[in-house]
């Protein structure tokens, strides 16, 4: 049995597989690409036909060349790796803290009365406002950046978990009481699995904020990373580099989100809901 009590989550049943649309069918992937490719083609055509100037808005072909050049020197991979590393570390730290704080306050109304107002007040601070303080505390390098990202991830995860845990159906909690689960066991075996669907949503919005904050963090002084590419492109007047970085953000951000969804999907197969999958 793992950390969460999802015994047998991996076991069943061929029946569920066949009647569901596969999340990675070819058609589905193709559908996802229709809109961006159409936009790129239109953009290219506008520039080629002279209807738009390509100077501040370089066409996809130029961006592709820039991307290729960056990739050929290995620079692109390095920038992506640095940024991805910051997001992942900050996300894991922030999500873990948010999960624990949310589970505790959701489980104990008394604790919530003490801690929640403070946390809500902290949440009201625009997270960028922490930047100067973090730089003073943690220096200009990695720690302050990761801390900022973690703060950004913490709050949506905390809010999501705390609210969801507090609203778990009493009837199901009573089942746990009848089987005499201790407090931690109740959290692990009843409360957290029950909130898993909303937990995944909270993690996804946390991850989104993580990507937002990594740019802020890299704006405040970095020598590598996708955010650095943005600043560098602005200072050297290279809009194609800016757009290349932006497109990379879109691609990598979407990729991490998809990985999160795919990674949690096996834990959610029990759901009996109307919605589309993933």
């Amino acid at each position, binding site marked *: *049995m793992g950390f969460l*009590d*999802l*015994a*047998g*989550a991996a*076991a*069943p*049943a061929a*029946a*569920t597989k066949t009647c569901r649309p596969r999340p990675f069918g070819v058609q589905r992937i193709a559908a996802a690409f229709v809109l961006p490719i159409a936009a790129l083609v239109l953009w290219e055509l506008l520039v080629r036909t002279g209807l738009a100037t390509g100077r501040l808005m370089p066409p996809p072909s130029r961006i592709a060349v820039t991307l290729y050049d960056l990739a050929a020197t290995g620079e692109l991979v390095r920038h992506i790796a640095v940024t991805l590393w910051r997001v992942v570390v900050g996300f894991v730290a922030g999500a873990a803290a948010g999960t624990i704080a949310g589970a505790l306050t959701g489980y104990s109304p008394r604790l919530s009365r003490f801690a929640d107002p403070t946390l809500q007040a902290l949440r009201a601070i625009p997270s960028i406002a922490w930047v100067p303080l973090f730089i003073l505390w943690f220096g200009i390098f990695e720690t302050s950046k990761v801390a900022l990202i973690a703060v950004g991830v913490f709050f949506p995860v905390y809010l999501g978990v705390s609210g969801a845990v507090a609203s778990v159906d009493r*009837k*199901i909690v*009573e*089942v746990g*009481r*009848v*089987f*005499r689960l201790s407090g931690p*066991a109740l959290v692990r*075996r*009843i409360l957290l*699995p*029950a909130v*898993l669907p909303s937990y995944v949503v909270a993690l996804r919005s946390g991850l989104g904020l993580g990507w937002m904050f990594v740019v802020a963090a890299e704006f405040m002084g970095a020598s590598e990373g996708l955010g650095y590419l943005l600043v560098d492109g602005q200072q050297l007047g290279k809009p194609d580099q800016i757009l290349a970085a932006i497109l990379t953000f879109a691609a990598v951000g979407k990729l991490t989100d998809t990985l999160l969804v795919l990674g949690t999907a096996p*834990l959610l*197969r*029990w*759901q*009996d809901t109307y919605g589309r999958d993933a």
Partner: protein
Amino acid sequence: MLELQNLTKVYPNGVHALEAFSLTVREGEIVAVIGGSGCGKSTLLRLIAGLEQPSRGRAVLDGATLTQPHPLVNIIFQEPRLLPWLTVAGNVGFGLADLAANDRALRVEEALLRVGLAGYGGRWVKELSGGQAQRVAIARALVTRPEVLLLDEPFSALDALTRADLQDHLADLWAESGTTMILVTHDIEEAAVLADRIVVMRPWPGRKLEEIEIALKRPRERTAPEVEALKRQLVAALNRSLDRSPGRSPGRSTDRSPVRAPENALGSEPVRVPFVP
């Protein structure tokens, strides 16, 4: 032996749900509790299960006062209350977390077999019918081998055929395990077919009105004349509990009346349905 001594419950909102309820339940006995809606039947079970604290009085199992859920007491609620993120096997084995995985699997398999759901272990809860889900709930409660099993209208959400099936099934399970049971029900036939003793309650505040000892052997045919006579006796007792005139037919009332009209009161077809999983 389960002893209820002057159990009294006043809810924080002032509702006097149960007043001085006393009862001694012998080991292996099936006691049915019947009575109108709101007369404190669920409250009674929740007090014994340790899900509520009594305002006065106490429940004592083998010398120990029950103030919180007891390992040898289990309850089956009106709805199955299965955990949807677990498979059927995961639900049935929920109370066996202390056991090694293969011991647990054995016990789960055995319990599923006993409720006629062998081979359903890998299913998700969403893939069960209502009756199957309730049987899984029964298996989940039985698998821990409780000494006392509390049942709060466990079959009331099911259709008449499934209900009769599961009642027969419960009688079989009792014959194998000898578990003490307290069965709250709206269904006088259920009480008449299963119980050794029937407690009739009256409301405002909820209390015991009378006790009826039943000397009939199990299994009982639903159409046996003794059972029919018992059902008539119960209808009369229920009418007394609600201060109703005996002339009025209780089975006719439309709302959630305390009395379910005996389905074959007038002696039509036999009812004992062979159990088909």
